[in-house]
């Protein structure tokens, strides 16, 4: 049985069209990339790329299906920072609520 990311030669997918079009990177995409660059930088090495890949492969099948490329990265970074005790889930939720409130106040 193949893992959900290991799709080479899977019979059920033969004949499915591959989207080969180039995608413009969004501000979100660039921000997530920058975040991973900073976390993996040799001066910190908080998350290695091997760990990022493992965490992406550990997403639920629903997350893996629903999230786009950089959304998978962000979810994996989130999961790893909690796993490594760099942040905790409550801390993240509080910060997100604070940012949302600020944004609502500014609007």
């Amino acid at each position, binding site marked *: 049985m193949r*893992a959900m990311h290991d799709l080479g*030669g899977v019979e059920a997918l033969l004949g499915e069209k591959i989207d080969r079009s180039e995608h413009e990177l969004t501000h979100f995409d660039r921000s997530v990339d920058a975040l991973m660059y900073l976390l993996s930088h040799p001066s910190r090495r908080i998350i290695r790329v*091997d760990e990022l890949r*493992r965490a992406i492969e550990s997403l639920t099948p629903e997350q893996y299906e629903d999230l786009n490329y950089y959304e998978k990265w962000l979810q994996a970074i989130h999961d790893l920072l909690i796993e490594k005790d760099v942040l905790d889930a409550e801390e993240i939720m509080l910060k997100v609520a604070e940012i949302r409130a600020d944004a609502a106040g500014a609007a």
Partner: protein
Amino acid sequence: MTARFRPGERVRVRADWPEVGGVRVHLRTPGYLRGRVGAVERAHGDYANPEKLAFGKPGFPKRTLYMVRFDQRDLWPRGEAPDGTLVADIFDHWLEPATTEQTHD
């Protein structure tokens, strides 16, 4: 670590499926190559084992990484380029010497 295989040597990718059975793993050996036979193109050198790095470990012992060339006809039963080849980087602990009496899987 001295390279165990020489260029041109026939090797089989181990037909192991550690991802089956609920143990969390991170593997760099794609499913479509497991059990397949190819020829060593060259050794890239010794690298920290990504299967361990992926879980925050230092990745020792280092493993030799080989470039291995496969015939596409051996990989894709209905492929469009049966005369083509495919190269993949495979770590030493996923390879074994290929002998003629062994068959796929």
